């Protein structure tokens, strides 16, 4: 049993403490927006915010995440309003298959929190998610659109 605070709700989940947070989120909390791509912290598909920091949830155990504030893609919008990154992603038609985009959006949201007007170099450094469809050009354009809004 573990208590995880996900998207503002504290859930008591029947999960072993050494389970990767990714699988606790997907299978025990039932929030499948967070994706599995590699399981070894390489691809970024599983990115969530832990206490506001973009984190690859496949590389964090449930025990480590207990007591912290976890935000998943499902919790990024507040109330009925989409986050500005989600809005820009829709307006700029960023996703192709979309599978990497939950993680991509979470990584970008964290970057913009820290640096509201990131340079290309900031983007290059902070956004290291894999996108096999190759949406990088649209990702970069959308970030700059948000930053210049």
């Amino acid at each position, binding site marked *: 049993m573990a208590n995880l605070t996900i998207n503002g709700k504290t859930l008591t989940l029947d999960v072993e403490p050494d389970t990767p947070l990714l699988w606790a989120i997907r299978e025990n909390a039932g929030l499948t927006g967070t994706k599995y791509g590699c399981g070894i912290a390489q691809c970024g598909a599983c990115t969530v915010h832990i206490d506001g920091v973009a984190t690859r949830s496949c590389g964090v155990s449930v025990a480590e995440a207990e007591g912290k504030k976890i935000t998943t893609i499902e919790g990024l919008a507040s109330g009925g309003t989409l986050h500005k990154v989600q809005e820009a992603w829709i307006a700029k038609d960023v*996703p192709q298959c979309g599978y990497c985009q*939950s993680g991509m959006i979470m990584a970008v949201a964290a970057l913009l929190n820290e640096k509201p007007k990131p340079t290309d170099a900031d983007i290059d450094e902070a956004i290291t998610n894999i996108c096999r469809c190759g949406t990088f050009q649209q990702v970069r354009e959308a970030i700059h659109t948000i930053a210049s809004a």
Partner: protein
Amino acid sequence: MNKHVSPKMNRRAFVIGTAAVGTGLAIGLEIPFGGPAVVRAADGSPEIGAWVVVRPDDTVVIRIARSEMGQGSLTGLAQLVAEELECDWSKVTTEYPTPGQSVARKRVWGDFSTGGSRGIRSSQDYVRKGGATARVMLIEAAANEWKVPASECTVARGVITHKASGRTTTYGKVAEAAAKLTPPADVKLKDPKDWTIVGKGLLRLDTADKTTGAMTYGIDVKLPGMLNAAIKDCPVFGGKLKSYDEAKITGMKGVKKVVKVGDTAVAVVADTWWHAKTALEALPIVWDEGDNAKVSSESIAKWLAEGLDDGQPAYVGNKNGDAKAAIAGAAKKVEAVYSYPYQNHATMEPMNATAVYTADKCEVWCGTQNGEAAFAAVLEASGLPAEKCDVHKVMPGGGFGRRGQTDYVRQAVMIAKQMPGTPVKLLWSREEDMAHGRYHPITQCKMTGAFDANNNLVALHYRLSGQSILFSLRPEALQNGMDPAAFQGVAQSGEAAFGYSVPNLLVEHAMRNPHVPPGFWRGVNVNHNAIYMECFMDELAQAAGQDPLEFRRKLMGNHPKHLAVLNAVAEKIGWNTPAPQGVYRGIAQVMGYGSYVAGAAEISVTEGNKIKVHRIVASTDPGYVVNPAQVERQVAGSFVYGLSALFYGGCTVKDGKIEQTNFDTYNSMRINEMPKVETVMVPSGGFWGGVGEPTIGVAAPAVLNAYFAATGKRIRSVPLRDQNITFA
């Protein structure tokens, strides 16, 4: 020692192949457009022909048979239907018919297969007719109600008007009456110059859910009482499962069952996938690896190299004059050997499928590029007849050709069959996905070019040695043993025709099929053929002391469309003006999937081995552009796929197994490595070419040719990782 693929795999391929060409399941391809008996969608709204459903609130539901996997053709196909239907685009939504429904209706929606960049080009004609047919019926229904000739009625955005009497109505209001009409025998399609929806860079219809986590991919499917399965297949292709020690994991948390899957694999079924995977890793397994365990990358390379020798038999794919004689008598000759490795598709979402089996029904939910092939796999694996099976397509997290295969669907059914009534979701780990791909075929190529005394290219001998995809996956498509697709990009004619005229030409393929299963890998045989030919073209230009662009142009007089895209990139990149300080250029062109494409790269190189790709200009002539915004995305994405392949994409074989296990050993480029891609579309009309794949072919040779310009070094094998060349 290199074994040909096993007969078992051929039999499997045969079932899929027959489904794909429509002889296995189909009663014949018919495109009926409704009929006097009204067919209703699930919500009760009437069909106006099989492609269009109109709801009372004027919403138009467009049926899409091909699979969306990120390439955008769901939106493009809807645009084509909506264009002819003259409906209100803001009221368009889409749905997938299931393959089971299609088969039950004599394949009313035609081919479901989505590969070969065919999604739009192979269905554009009949889906447009579907839209036009519905329009005619809807107008006729309004005209009947008003008792006026249909010819006096017009329609715009789903509103029908009879001008003389000033009456108007909407599609939603006349849909019921329209559904009862007999469809017209023939309809006339619009002239492309009158298009208002096709040709526009409209936003995709399926984006919102991809930004909120709400989109359901195969991995996200949830069914009541569902269990989860993790699987291991024999890591040596062609090997078998010998035994496993189930007692070692019984009692592990969540484990429900351990099952054998065919002759080659074992799966653990548990409450959660994490429990299933953890238990599977703890399960002692003994494999019967067989003779293929002796195969390595080195043994394959040696075998392929032998095939480059003229003395070995080869299939001739393109020929004119007498290349060998002309080479023998030439003033000067140039020779080079290139090679291309195995590569995994590495779709972002690993393979998975969810199946539920009872004696009366077998249903599967999965991402697939070919709903009908998946359906055929369900039939075969379940042993049930077509009317008791179905496949529900969900969004795939990438396809790139991998999800045209159905191995994972078959496995899911084989597991579910051992637990009747319980839905089971089978998910491959990334490691399983890396170990059991359907890899980009492995080849080598020896090219010899010969010049006369005036540096005119008089002969070219292009000799491929290596793997045939069709041999393994569609043996029925071989032509007297020859794989015609092996010549994509260097073929005599057709949708992947060679773009140069050489007086004496010999293009041949010494087929060698190692045991590693090949597959259709986005771009397929165009990828290596374009690298071989376009890099060698640069070598020939250098030998002739000529500019690479000018040298090509001289050979392209009879190939105006190939030349037009090449000229377009040359102009846009400023080929005839100096590049910025320290920046070097490379250029390449190829034809594939019915489209003409070219690419030009600007790169800089530091320390001799660190490449920065600054800028890419890509040109494409697909005949018609349905959605320029999506074409742009496919072109830019093609450079990510193609340059990832060039820099990082290599799967090596040791002891018969693939050595790479995950993205740490099989990397993919990131945003910091992404060049700016400028797309130039030059649609010349009159034909329909594909978009998703052809551009990949020019990505690598444009960069490799620029690398030569920068360093004077020719790179003749992929990936650059293995030559200690990286992104800067």
